[in-house]
């Protein structure tokens, strides 16, 4: 202890081997008036706070501050992110829905309160502190094993080396050692600083590269680690592909697929055509109708169905062997005669209504269909074939005769229920264009007229004689509803066949309502008729 010099002494420590001895010594030192004292123990000793006169800590307040910060951060973050900056519109719920924000608020409160408790403890304890004069005494290693140390610091106002030593001895302390100031540098070793500095510099490099990439342009393509399906070899429908051995982009139906509709009532019901009669004049077309509307095909590969480019007469369905939905109404011509139209046009608008191309031998009669009336429902203009479309698109097409043996009778039993069903369906699907009274002045048409939509083809009025059932049989009306005409899309995918037939029945009733004689009205109701002024 020759090196003991008052200037360099940091304090005195005394060793104890039991908790009770330590506590007794602590009380004695406290009563002697020392304040810069501390005890070092391998485990928390209860009662030592009182024995040493240690004041309570402010740590709980730090944890509370952390917790409140978490609460406020979480609530304001969620309100701002989900309610203000990017409002999520979800099933009519309020943007600021506090109950849903509680879990995250709770978690962040706990998280920041825990940070407050942990880091607050470290900061109040001035940890980490790797350089400590006590550590220079190898005896002190026992403080984390089974020894207890009482320490009186040299900067205590009552500190006098001899007095302290005597006090500690009297208190029962063994191995009283002076703790010297640690003269060695408390700086980090140079190697640490260098390595940490280099690592810090290196870690900036990727950030700088990323920042530079963000603000500069490059002509080379983006570098992809993961392709994210950006370069998927998928192909459009109707195009060939290398993905499958047969080259088809669209897959055919699984063999044995059951047709969803059409198996129940036979082809007549689903096509509106008397197929037996058709078979006599156009067997090929009749066969296709049967295949698509009536029953399963006999073989897997339908005729005239080359693998890659589908024939134009099956526009809606893929080149499937057994299409699930009935295709647009079969054009009369076999595929070979039909000019192949661009596939993209097909699904919505079939090229023309029943383009019966075989030259007709009969004298040219006005085609029964599509005398599209101008919006005003005056007496119908002479039935030119598609007057509006014709002027807009093609020079007057040669008039043709419809030889299709349409069903002339509604296969449904027409009852009040059927008519009401038809009315409902008509008002849902048809009235938007055709108007509830069938005069072709639905809201969509009115709007199109108002904005003078150039591509608009006005819908037909139901009340022109060309559409009465003598000229436009029920089957043909059914077919038009199913497959569309001109700009009108087919509704077979949206309206069930029975409902389409109900609409047909309702349209007939609608026509009758505007074209009836007094005899058509039941006797009981005639009194209610008010003569027109």
């Amino acid at each position: 202890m020759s090196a003991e010099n008052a200037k360099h002494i940091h304090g005195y420590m005394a060793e104890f081997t039991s908790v009770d001895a330590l506590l007794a010594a602590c009380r004695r030192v406290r009563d002697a008036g020392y304040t810069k004292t501390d005890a070092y123990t391998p485990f928390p000793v209860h009662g030592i706070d009182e024995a040493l006169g240690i004041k309570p800590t402010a740590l709980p307040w730090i944890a509370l501050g952390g917790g409140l910060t978490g609460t406020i951060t979480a609530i304001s973050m969620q309100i701002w992110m989900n309610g203000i900056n990017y409002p999520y519109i979800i099933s009519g719920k309020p943007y600021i829905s506090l109950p849903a924000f509680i879990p995250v608020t709770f978690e962040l409160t706990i998280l920041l309160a825990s940070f407050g408790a942990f880091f607050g403890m470290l900061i109040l304890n001035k940890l980490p502190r790797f350089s400590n004069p006590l550590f220079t005494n190898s005896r002190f290693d026992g403080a984390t094993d089974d020894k207890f140390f009482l320490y009186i610091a040299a900067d205590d106002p009552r500190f006098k080396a001899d007095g302290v030593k005597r006090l500690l001895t009297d208190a029962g302390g063994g191995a009283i050692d002076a703790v010297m100031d640690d003269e060695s540098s408390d700086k980090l070793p140079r190697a640490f600083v260098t390595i940490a500095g280099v690592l810090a510099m290196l870690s900036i490099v990727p950030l700088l590269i990323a920042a530079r990439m963000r603000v500069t342009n490059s002509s080379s393509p983006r570098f992809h680690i993961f392709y994210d399906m950006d370069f998927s070899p998928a192909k459009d429908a109707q195009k060939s592909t290398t993905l499958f051995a047969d080259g088809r982009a669209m897959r055919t139906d699984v063999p044995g697929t059951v047709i969803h509709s059409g198996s129940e009532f036979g082809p007549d019901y689903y096509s509106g055509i008397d197929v037996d009669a058709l078979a006599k004049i156009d067997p090929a077309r009749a066969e296709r109708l049967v295949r698509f509307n009536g029953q399963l095909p006999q073989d897997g590969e339908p005729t005239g169905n080359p693998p890659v480019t589908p024939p134009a007469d099956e526009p809606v369905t893929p080149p499937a062997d057994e299409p699930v939905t009935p295709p647009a109404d079969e054009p009369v011509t076999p595929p070979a005669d039909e000019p192949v139209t661009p596939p993209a046009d097909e699904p919505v608008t079939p090229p023309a209504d029943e383009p019966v191309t075989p030259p007709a031998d009969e004298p040219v009669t006005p085609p029964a269909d599509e005398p599209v009336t101008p919006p005003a429902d005056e007496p119908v203009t002479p039935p030119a074939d598609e007057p509006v479309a014709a002027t807009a698109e093609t020079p007057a097409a040669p008039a043709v005769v419809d030889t299709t043996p349409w069903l002339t009778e509604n296969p449904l039993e027409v009852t009040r229920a059927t008519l009401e069903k038809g009315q409902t369906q008509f008002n849902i699907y048809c009235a938007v264009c055709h108007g509830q009274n069938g005069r072709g002045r639905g809201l969509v048409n009115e709007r199109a007229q108002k904005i003078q939509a150039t591509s608009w083809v006005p819908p037909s009025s139901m009340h022109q004689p060309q559409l009465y059932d003598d000229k436009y049989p029920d089957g043909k009306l059914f077919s038009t509803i199913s497959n569309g005409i001109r700009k009108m899309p087919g509704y077979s995918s949206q309206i069930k066949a029975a409902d389409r037939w109900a609409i047909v029945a309702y349209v007939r009733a609608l026509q009758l309502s505007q074209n009836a004689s007094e005899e058509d009205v039941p006797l009981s109701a005639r009194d209610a008729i008010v003569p027109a002024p």
Partner: protein
Amino acid sequence: MAIAVTNSLDNTVERPGDRAPLVLGNTTYHNITESVCRIAETPPSKLWFFGFFIASSLATMFGLLIAYLLYMGVGVWGNRSPVFWGWPIVNFVFWVGIGHAGTLISAILFLFRQEWRTSINRAAEAMTIFAVVCAGTFPGIHVGRAWLAFWLAPYPSLNLWMWPQFRSPLLWDVFAVSTYGTVSLLFWYMGMIPDLATFRDRSKNKWRRMAYGILSLGWCGSSRHWMRYEKAYALLAALAAPLVLSVHTIVSFDFAVSQVPGWHTTIFPPYFVAGAIFSGFAMVLTLMIPARSIFKLEHLITIRHLDNMCKIILATGTIVGLAYGTEFFIAWYGQVPAEQFAFINRAFGPYWWAYWTMVTCNVVSPQLFWFKRLRNDPKLIFIITIFVNIGMWFERFVIVVTSLSRDYLPSAWKYFSPTWVDWGMLVGSFGLFFTLFLLFCRFMPVINMAETKATLSHQLRHANEHASH
């Protein structure tokens, strides 16, 4: 002097007016230090190397499988319509549940002043951390494009121009599990600081001393430090106790907030929490029973500790059984056909084997713990805890897979089959877990020495008071 009273080895007997000793034998403070430090200071045994070799091989396989998954895409899993959650989510819920016992032991038992927790809390907390590591891996790779998993965080993204959806339980889950992992890590690390200082002070090697010196942050055992440290520990315990209950509650919201029959039930939060504690205690015992025997820690982790944990397993196992029954009752009482079907399908549908495995392992097997003799037999406890682990994995399987594979539309039903990658990842996650645990045993204080010494100190004082009467 720090000499414990000599105890008979059976400390499971209750003596009225007397506290059962929790540290056995002629144990001194120094003995405790020696017993625990010896594990890390002596070269590991062949058994350790053997275990580590197997575990780290499986963990490596896990890593390789994740790389394979990232390269190939999530199609390598068995997740197919309609079971898109499959094994990754089963494993996630399983591992999160395992973690809960650690926090329960360290936080809730601390708040209840259950001193017997002191010799098991360290290992249990370590188990929590490692289980959360395993758990966090699965949703991370299950998001599909795992390299974009950071989109889960609410950060101002220049790619998305949008924020996360804070009304979604899946996002709550992100916050809950990450908070849970972080707070558990803090709690674990803070508890280790004094013991790491012990390691530091016993180190003969300069580098070892420096490493433990840095880890122990210069801890010197000052009474002022201890006072703040204990306050911080109590605060963390008070914060972690509701946290541990919230985490599995929020995990259960992932299911309960959806409309899937069998998931959409209000019983899920308490049921999940009880199940988590149940499975966690089973895993603690699965780890501790071999560890106490291999590392010769029977005087610190006594039969009484095992006995107490068995009682908790019995209690929570019975709660879980009650929950299974309640689910069926509510399905009947609620009169929702889809819900009724979901539960009948669970028990008697194509997954009946999973359901009855679950019931046997979780409800029936813990009932053996009603008998004290069975509670005090470490080998038998070990076997039962293995059953409980299996049962709890199956519980999550039953919940996730049976409900998804058959919900409302029979046309959308499908039987789920795992692929070899699913199997590999389940086994691999166990490899990761055991690798971390074996490393922990090797390099970290397995038992909380400071707290055990404090327990011994109380025991001595108590014994002295008795002697002076």
